[in-house]
């Protein structure tokens, strides 16, 4: 595959460079044309807005409210600013220029201008960062009692352009990832798949695995014949060696025992390093993984499309519930989704060992499509909530069956890499889904985005139906429901328990509390829009996609896994504290990036640690129940995340919420690392 990777990387680099250059030059050109045309439009708008606000002030004055006594002008100004972001400041003054009501930043130049009070209530002046439009405030037919000044941001044109560029950048990133997915998809079928399988056979041979021969496909007949000839030669030599050795064994009385024994030991060593056989034809596990990738990706993207606007959509459908605040109710669909996933996973885990995985994937994808159709046509908040529960069930099925399938294809030796592959698909989907969903929703509306999601999920179902071979791997008696006894057995394993409660749960708590709840709200609170929140959150998945595979290779050594998980926790805690020390959008962007790094460092090693820590339990219970317990507990952290975030935020505000969760993570990092450092040597000795 390294040839493929080099090829892909090279192509992508050229593509990115070309696109970025084109983007940069065209936007620079656009900026020059944009501003001169936009400014007069903004002025016109300021005039219209000024007259309408002046008439409102006029009404109040006609009813006997003096200009200075008007109440709630600041709220009206704030509403205007919120709705029309090109306006930076609104000020009402009396005739002498004394400020009576204002909203926005009064720059020194503006204050000086107002104090001079030379305005006659018409025209527009440029004052450092504003274009100022002034309108008289008066009762009908009376002399002005004061003036309303509306300052339009000079930088608005640049802002609009920057927003557009960021959107284009998002689309660029997403399309790159989709291009990669298409390459994977192509490499999972047809000629590319056979080519990949052959490469895999060759790679296997260079590692010393001569057990598999290349696929003798007609397109690659000469090439694969050559490869197979090499493999056959090695295997033939090995066979000869075995024959010679057995001859020697039979004649050992004449030749002496010691040398024969040495030869047998030599053969054993050889077998440890190399695998012989040459009877299995290369099936191309990588190709199968590629086939699995497309439907998983489509399904997950479909689900992620709605993520950026689910709270907004819920608020639209919201009907008051007695005794519960709107914020909490609007968060319910997210919580319900997470909770269903958490609770269904152990059950689905046992199904995945009993029922065919393909069938489980198929059911999940169809269920997903149905749930999106349901959401698209939901009448009330409650049926929407119900459909989100169905969507959660579909997600759980796909996750469990997909993960089991991937792990099976990867084999026990490549568990970490298999997990990383799987996490990679989820991350890429969460880069593409929410950002594209947000842009789509702006264009076609929330409900139509759900229809798009339904179509994607249906396509995923079709791909599973036609492309994924049936797996008849049914372990009789192995599949059974998760029992409380399993929990007891696993939690009684103290190291596993520490891993769950000091690492798995806290990692999910900070992730969901920040990326789903606190940061979106914080970004809005800082005066930015939801698109900005979407972009910032996208950074997380972006980091994950590149980070997870890097760490996966490095953390193949079990001793390094503890280090990875501990470092990940510590980094998450530091990330969590960043916005406390350094408020603002850059800090939360850094937090999200750092959270991405932290989770990439820990997520795959942590999953692999389950296997390390629970060897005995896996042997006894099967890996389904063990991973089921792990996932259930981990996902309960997902459900706790938003609740904890909401509780802290409503009581203590942003700063304390960030500080509290960040400190929790650092404490967990310390506990986790200390426990594992203290118990590791003893454990190793016991194992030996």
């Amino acid at each position, binding site marked *: 595959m390294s040839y493929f990777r080099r090829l892909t990387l090279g192509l992508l680099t050229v593509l990115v460079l070309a696109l970025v250059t084109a983007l940069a030059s065209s936007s620079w050109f656009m900026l020059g044309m944009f501003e001169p045309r936009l400014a007069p439009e903004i002025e016109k708008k300021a005039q219209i807005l000024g007259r309408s606000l002046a008439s*409102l*002030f006029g*009404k*109040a004055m006609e*009813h*006997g*409210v003096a200009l200075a*006594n*008007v*109440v*709630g*002008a600041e*709220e*009206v100004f704030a*509403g205007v600013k919120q709705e029309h972001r090109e306006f930076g400041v609104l000020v009402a003054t009396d005739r002498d220029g004394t400020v009576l009501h204002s909203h926005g930043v009064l720059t020194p130049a503006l204050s000086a201008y107002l104090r001079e009070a030379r305005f006659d209530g018409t025209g527009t002046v440029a004052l450092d960062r504003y274009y100022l439009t002034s309108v008289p405030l008066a009762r009908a037919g009376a002399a002005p009692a004061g003036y309303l000044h509306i300052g339009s941001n000079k930088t608005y044109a640049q802002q609009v352009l920057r927003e557009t560029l960021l959107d284009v950048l998002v689309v660029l990133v997403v399309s790159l990832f989709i291009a990669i997915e298409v390459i994977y998809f192509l490499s999972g079928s047809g000629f590319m798949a056979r080519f990949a399988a052959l490469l895999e056979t060759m790679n296997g041979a260079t590692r010393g695995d001569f057990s598999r021969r290349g696929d003798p496909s007609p397109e690659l007949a000469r090439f694969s014949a050559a490869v197979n000839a090499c493999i056959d030669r090695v295997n033939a030599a090995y066979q000869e060696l075995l024959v010679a050795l057995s001859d020697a064994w039979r004649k050992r009385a004449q030749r002496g025992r010691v040398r024969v024994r040495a030869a047998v030991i030599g053969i054993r060593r050889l077998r440890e390093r190399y695998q012989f056989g040459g009877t299995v034809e290369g099936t191309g596990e990588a190709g199968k993984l590629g086939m699995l990738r497309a439907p998983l990706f489509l399904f997950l993207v479909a689900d992620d499309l709605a993520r950026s606007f689910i709270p907004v959509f819920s608020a639209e459908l919201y009907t*008051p519930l*007695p*005794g*519960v*605040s709107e914020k909490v109710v609007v968060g319910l669909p997210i919580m319900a989704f997470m909770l269903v996933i958490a609770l269904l996973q152990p059950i689905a885990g046992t199904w995945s060992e009993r029922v065919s995985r393909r069938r489980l994937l198929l059911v999940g994808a169809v269920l997903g499509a149905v749930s999106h159709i349901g959401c698209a046509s939901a009448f009330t908040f409650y049926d929407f909530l119900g459909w989100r529960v169905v969507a959660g069930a579909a997600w759980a099925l796909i996750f469990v069956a997909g993960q089991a399938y991937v792990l099976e294809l990867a084999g026990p030796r490549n568990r970490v890499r298999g997990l990383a592959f799987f996490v990679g698909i989820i991350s890429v989907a969460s880069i593409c889904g929410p950002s594209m969903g947000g842009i789509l929703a702006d264009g076609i509306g929330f409900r139509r985005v759900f229809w798009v999601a339904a179509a994607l999920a249906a396509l995923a179902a079709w791909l599973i139906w036609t492309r994924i071979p049936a797996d008849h791997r049914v372990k009789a008696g192995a599949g059974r429901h998760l029992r409380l006894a399993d929990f007891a057995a696993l939690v009684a394993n103290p190291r596993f328990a520490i891993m769950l409660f000091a690492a798995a749960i806290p990692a999910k708590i900070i992730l969901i509390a920040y990326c789903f709840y606190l940061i979106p709200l914080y970004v809005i609170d800082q005066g930015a829009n939801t698109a900005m929140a979407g972009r910032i959150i996208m950074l997380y998945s972006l980091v994950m996609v590149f980070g997870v595979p890097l760490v996966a290779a490095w953390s193949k050594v079990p001793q390094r896994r503890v280090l990875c998980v501990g470092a990940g926790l510590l980094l998450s805690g530091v990330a969590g504290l960043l916005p406390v020390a350094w408020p603002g959008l850059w800090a939360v962007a850094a937090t999200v990036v750092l959270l991405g790094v932290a989770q990439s460092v820990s997520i795959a090693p942590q999953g692999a640690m389950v296997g390390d820590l629970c060897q005995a339990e896996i042997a006894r219970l099967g890996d389904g129940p063990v991973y089921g317990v792990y996932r259930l507990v981990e996902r309960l952290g997902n459900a706790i995340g938003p609740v904890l975030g909401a509780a802290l935020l409503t009581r203590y505000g942003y700063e304390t919420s960030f500080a509290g969760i960040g400190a929790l993570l650092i404490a967990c990092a310390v506990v986790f690392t200390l426990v594992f450092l203290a118990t590791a040597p003893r454990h190793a000795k016991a194992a030996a």
Partner: protein
Amino acid sequence: MRTFASFLALAAAFVAAPTSVRAAEKVPTIYMITWRGMTDVERGFQGYLAERGIKVDYVVRDAGQEPARLPGFVAEIKRLKPDLVYTWGTTVTLGVAGPWDRVDPARHVTDVPIVFTLVAAPVGARLVPATNASRRNLTGVSHLADTAAQLAAIRAYRPFRKLGVLYNAAEQNSQAGVRELRSLARSSSFELIEKTFATDGQGKPSATGIEERVRELKAGGAEWLYLGPDTFLFTQIGRVAAAAREARLPTFAATQAVADAPGVLAGLVSNYVSVGQFTGYKAERILRGARAQDLPVETLSRFSLVVRMEVARELGLPPPLAMFNYAEIR
């Protein structure tokens, strides 16, 4: 209200023709019971039916605020067998129809459809179990905006932490209203300060000590005095409003009749004529063959926020600027 409006449009299109046919039919009788004489509601009701070209014979009775007269009316309804009974307010409607879970066919009207109007809280007063369908031979119209909407309107004018309410503890509509205020106080965290009117020896409400009670509400920290749908309060509104003005306590009314009284600062109210017209629309549907139990119990969807500037100026509480856009300033 949406159904009301679309019905108007629809009906106008094709009802005109059959009117002449219907003229030959038997003219239906509507038995109307009022509580305190004819109001704008009856004018809206009868005006609507007349406008729609529906000929009706009216039998009009007034209870004169005496619940004791209601059994006589029930007996008369059983004798006359009108096509429809119209009842005004909670007390009259309960007296004629009974609560939904304790209907006594001997004392209550069951075989003639009833259309009620101006019932503040039809569910709270146990007239119907739910507003979507009454499941009994009765339907009607409420005139109140949702209590949460009323509180939102008060907050939009001036936010508050303590809300005062003065009510007649003997009236079911008042009890229902106060119960709802209490639950909203818990969920949206404000404090409700309650005072009830004094009662005389027979347990009837009396006007004694109104000023004192209003002063106590103010002294207790109430920032607003909420004037709910309370018949006794309506009869005393002049004194209550004057006392509140004296104590510099802003007042907010839930009903048009109270908001119309001089001295009341503001209110979120429905126009009584519109309430009557909407009731007329329900009556029309029943006269045309719809079953009362199938018709929802509804309130209007549009309310007016009224503000009396004279009081606002006197209290130094001008409405916020945005309110001049949508309030009916008097």
